[in-house]
């Protein structure tokens, strides 16, 4: 890993952490609903710098974010980690299959879907163990995840286009790789 990669990961992780902390401050009609703003950074990093960068950022964000919030190794940490890893891997796999088929919005939707899927599975497996409760809540979470994933995807799309426009030299090679 080159020095430039490390610096990039550090800066992007800081952005992701800031968004992660910021969205916890936003008032929400449903306590467990999160916008997943940090996924904007994960997705942007994935498309511009590749899977390893995005995955590292996700791990750093989940671990440090839970340390700041005081939930490290707690139930919500397990769900957060599982969702983060699964979502990032799903987006990375989809991007690996085809760079043309899905744009940032589609990738974000896939990420949100797998993130929520992993969390529901973990919640059922470890905590709730009542299948009817999980089945009941799944479509609701899917709808919310699709809406937030859609918005995050649009923001990522704008961010990536602006970054490529402003810094075409330093980013162009990476994005094509």
């Amino acid at each position, binding site marked *: 890993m080159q020095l430039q990669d490390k610096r990039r990961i550090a800066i992007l992780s800081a952005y992701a952490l800031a968004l992660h902390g910021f969205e916890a401050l936003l008032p929400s009609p449903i306590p467990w609903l999160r916008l997943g703003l940090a996924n904007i950074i994960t997705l942007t990093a994935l498309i511009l710098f590749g899977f390893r960068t995005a995955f590292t950022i996700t791990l750093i964000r989940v671990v440090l974010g839970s340390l700041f919030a005081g939930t490290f190794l707690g139930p919500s940490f397990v769900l957060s980690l599982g969702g983060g890893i699964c979502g990032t891997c799903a987006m990375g796999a989809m991007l690996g299959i085809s760079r043309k088929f899905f744009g940032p*919005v589609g990738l974000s939707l896939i990420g949100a879907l797998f993130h929520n899927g992993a969390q529901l599975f973990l919640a059922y497996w470890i905590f709730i163990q009542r299948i*009817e*409760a999980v*089945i*009941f809540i799944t*479509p609701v979470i*899917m709808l919310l995840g699709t809406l937030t994933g859609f918005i995050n995807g649009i923001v990522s799309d704008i961010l990536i286009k602006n970054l490529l426009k402003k810094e075409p030299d330093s980013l162009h090679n990476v994005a094509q790789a």
Partner: protein
Amino acid sequence: MTLADRALFTVLIIASFAGMFYTREALSQGTEVIIEVSGKPVFTASLDLDRDVPIEGAHGRAGVEIRDGKVRMKEAPCDNHICMKQGWITRGTIVCLPNSIVVIAGGGVKKDVDAITG
């Protein structure tokens, strides 16, 4: 946004609405009766099975009657008998506050929050 993005978004929205509709249909026929005393479930049965259930409450014996898919508080050892006046129900709850008895009908699924994720 590519065409596939739009298609995926549409499919997910439709699927989640369909899922919500379907689960509500499938789970709303909750024909269970749960009787709780002081917050602890002491009796669970199907609404389809006609029977009288004696329940030992905080102030003595109460009687819950299940008949024709409905449930009522038949007798209760309290003064105001609010629970008995509520009559037959198929969904919802009958609460006998002095006796700490709660009869929950048509339940099955509680939308509890078990954890907040981050």
